[in-house]
């Protein structure tokens, strides 16, 4: 049996970063799945990429420029219509600062 690529402790750390509260069963399942995927992607190490530039984007070069003009209208009600909880023109959340 090969060394696991990822431990339960690492899974819990990543879940915290990703804001996902996993159940103990899920943690183990996710660990096993990630382990399998990380072992699979190891095949990329067969390739020497020391001198290869990374590709982040494949579109045409350059970012188009535009005038800095407001083109939309205020639409607070439309934006807040999907809010799970609102008060007047605010999104309502639990207390953040103790």
């Amino acid at each position, binding site marked *: 049996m090969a060394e696991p690529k*990822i431990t339960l402790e*690492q*899974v819990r*750390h*990543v*879940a915290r*970063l*990703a*804001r*996902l*509260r*996993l*159940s103990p069963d*899920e943690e183990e*399942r*996710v660990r096993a*799945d*990630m382990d*399998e*995927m*990380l072992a*699979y*992607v190891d*095949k*990329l*190490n*067969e*390739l020497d*990429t020391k001198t*290869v*530039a*990374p*590709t*982040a*984007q*494949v*579109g*045409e070069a350059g*970012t*188009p420029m*535009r005038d800095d003009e407001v083109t939309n209208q205020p*639409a607070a009600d*439309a*934006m807040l*219509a*999907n*809010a*799970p*909880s609102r008060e007047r023109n605010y*999104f309502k*959340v*639990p*207390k*953040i600062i103790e």
Partner: protein
Amino acid sequence: MASELNKLTIAEASAMLRKREISALELTRDCLERIAAAEPKLNAFITVSEKEATEQARQADARLASGGDEAPLLCGIPLGIKDIYATTGVRTTCASRILENFVPPFDATVIERLRSDGAVFIGKTNMDEFAMGSSTENSAFGPTLNPHDTGRVAGGSSGGSAAAVAAHECLGALGTDTGGSIREPASFCGVVGLKPTYSRVSRYGVIAYASSLDQVGPFAKSVRDAAIILRTLAGKDPRDSTCSARAVPDYERALTGDVKGLRIGVPKEFFVEGMEPEVEKSVRAALKTYESLGATTAEISLPHTGYAIAAYYLVATAEASANLARYDGIRFGLRVDAENNISLNEITRAQGFGAEVKRRIMLGTFALSAGYYDAYYLKGQKVRTLIRNDFERAFQKCDLIVTPVAPTTAFKLGEKMNDPLTMYLSDIFTISVNLAGLPGMSIPCGYDSKHLPIGMQLIGPPFSEETILRAGDAFERSGASKPRATAI
């Protein structure tokens, strides 16, 4: 039920609408009737917008009555819309519990364009949650079944759109393709599915999965219909800075039927172990058809093909982990209340996302996390460069690459659900096209002995949609593969 106008192609229906031989309302009603009859068996739609569609059809009829030949080709044509597109006033779920009740206050750019052409939106089609999957089994609203065999999957992630078009619930549909999500379901359901060049079509208002790979495209019953839809979709959009400003050709004019002298490359790495012999045989026969039409075929090499899935699952999941951070229970979507904000985020996301979405968020977050970025995410991006270079080199020797779409025909429901990696491998022939940002189209090229459709993939250099469509149309015209009626 006598008329069955829903079985028409877009080109046929459009001509009849102009001549006032049929009305958009009749056409829409036939689609709605078909939906009512077929949906209990297929589950291709998450939402059927009967009321809105009927109203759009009435408006289209008014426009056709006054404008006649001036009206756009899509005026009065009922289309299915993948439930990943923001549609004003019609809920948009992305097949996720986290967006179950989300009603967008705006239209995606492509929806706006189709709307201004007078198209009729018959409903929102089923998909894998957040477009993550290859079978539409990862939907919070249950899987879509294949109209050719309801014991099998429709493919994914745009399985609902593919099944809806195959079963004549609509005349065409929109999908999205990040790693094969248009082409694989098109292949499994026996319809045409086109993923345009990255940046050809605006993604504004399309719920993001992996932004450097996502692309919008049509499903259709014929290559001509796909060309008609693409013309409306494509073109510059100030709201998507990645969208190309290149002029949009009249794609239909490219459909000359002439492929004489077209150089077709056949990558040896795509004809490997694990492919169903019937799939290989069918694609090889299609290549013979092309030769008989005057094209030439030659073996080429795309040496890094075997690394595409590994590179994809690092790049795509990393981007997904960032894109899906917005579902936090604060501004829209599901909220599960908790004692503090972080717990609220964590519990909402735990309850709102399905297993595959969580799996990909976790892998992507890990690939981007401190200490692992270089080994995983950056490595994936570098291998992406090698895959791109493979295609660039190949297109110095050929105009078009032809491959199978998938190693198999539609697989059985549940067959791959317990093994994520096996499911991922079903995209082995489509994924590299997204990594390289190229256009690719799936067209039906035959059936296996189980009467399941087989798809052939046509891949071209960036912005070669006209060549791809011309070659696809020429194959259709040859009559080498005749479409068969679905079981449902």
